[in-house]
């Protein structure tokens, strides 16, 4: 075997071995880099969204009539039935199981306040009264994962266009409601895509302009703006909220330990009155 032959064969062999390595071993794992001092400083350039944000209930109610979702025929029939049931004193119990109100219902029909936190690469929304209300919106430039696990609040990425946070959310459980009240709503049934433009419309008024694409239940994208107003009084700070807490009452066990004891509720979500 002459040297010239080896000079050709060895690089070819080496190349073929390299090509045979699993692809993933060649990729560098993605890390979330530690924020720099500049990252923290840059947060100060963002608009001020601190404080307690409470939904504008009167506008939620008004939009039930003025801006209903473009339901398809099947969904519209179910909504009509829900209206009739509620009017008859049997409100459909959409949210009585303490699962998250989830996206997009949390933004659409919440009756509870929230706060919004900025940290480098992320905006976090934390809701009250229901400890599992939490949205993580990644603003670090990442894309959606190729095949994200479906969740109640979906996978959200965002970027700033001036003072407007633009959010794109996918991978939401098909079971989550597109709701227009706590008694009228239809599961999105899959393939839902939500975009939002969130901005201060006034110094203490936040607008969330949603576009909801839900081809299984809507005939076209539905645009709606939800309004939140700000409070800064310390006494109205967000408090802990554990939805299942109301399912129990303080009690004690046979050893005198303080315990939570279950109490019965009716199908509508109220404690059953004593007989």
């Amino acid at each position, binding site marked *: 075997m002459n040297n010239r032959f080896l000079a050709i064969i060895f690089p070819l062999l080496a190349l073929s071995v390299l090509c045979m390595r699993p692809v993933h071993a060649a990729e560098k794992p993605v890390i979330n880099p530690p924020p720099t001092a500049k990252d923290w400083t840059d947060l100060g350039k963002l608009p001020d969204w601190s404080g307690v944000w409470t939904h504008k209930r009167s506008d939620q109610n008004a939009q039930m009539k003025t801006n209903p979702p473009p339901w398809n025929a099947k969904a519209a029939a179910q909504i009509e039935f829900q209206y009739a049931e509620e009017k008859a004193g049997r*409100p459909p119990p959409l949210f009585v199981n303490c699962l998250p109100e989830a996206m997009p219902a949390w933004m659409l029909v919440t009756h509870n306040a929230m706060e919004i936190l900025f940290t480098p690469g992320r905006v976090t929304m934390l809701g009250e009264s229901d400890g599992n209300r939490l949205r993580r919106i990644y603003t670090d430039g990442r894309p959606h994962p190729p095949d994200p696990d479906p969740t109640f609040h979906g996978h959200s990425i965002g970027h700033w266009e001036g003072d407007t946070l633009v959010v794109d959310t996918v991978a939401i459980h098909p079971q989550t409601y597109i709701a227009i009240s706590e008694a009228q709503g239809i599961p999105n049934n899959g393939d839902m895509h939500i975009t939002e433009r969130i901005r201060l419309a006034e110094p203490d008024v936040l607008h969330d302009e949603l576009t909801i694409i839900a081809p299984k239940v809507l005939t076209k994208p539905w645009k709606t703006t939800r309004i939140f107003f700000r409070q800064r009084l310390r006494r109205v700070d967000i408090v802990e909220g554990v939805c299942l807490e109301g399912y129990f009452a303080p009690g004690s066990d046979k050893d005198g330990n303080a315990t939570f004891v279950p109490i019965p509720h009716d199908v509508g979500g109220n404690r059953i009155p004593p007989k």
Partner: protein
Amino acid sequence: MQPSLRRFAVYSAFSSLATVTYPATAHHSTTMFDHAAVVSIAGTVKEVHWTNPHVAIFVYGVSKEGDEPALWVFEMTSPGNLVRAGGWSRTAVKPGDKVTVSMAPLRDGSRGGALKKITMVDTGVSLNADIRDQEGTIKE
């Protein structure tokens, strides 16, 4: 023990023993209450459940003079919402307080309702429980 108090004790015992699964209280419409038929209950507060997502107040009382006193339960919104509506705190209404309650009764006729307003007889202090009171009423 008065019969109604015995019922309360039985209810409490049942509460502590209940292990079956019930739908949990959560976020829901309130048309199971007849909002057009406000009823007044006078009595004494037995328990206050200052809990999310709905606060409840248990009152041992009557809807009209001459009735046999009985235990009622009144549902409200969340602690956070009540605080923001104004005047409320965990101790604003306490067991033992003599109260009058305006409430929308459950349509099924059982002794429950949605609390609209509660007045402490000894102090004359009244508290509303309307979630809509939050809107724009509390500003710096």
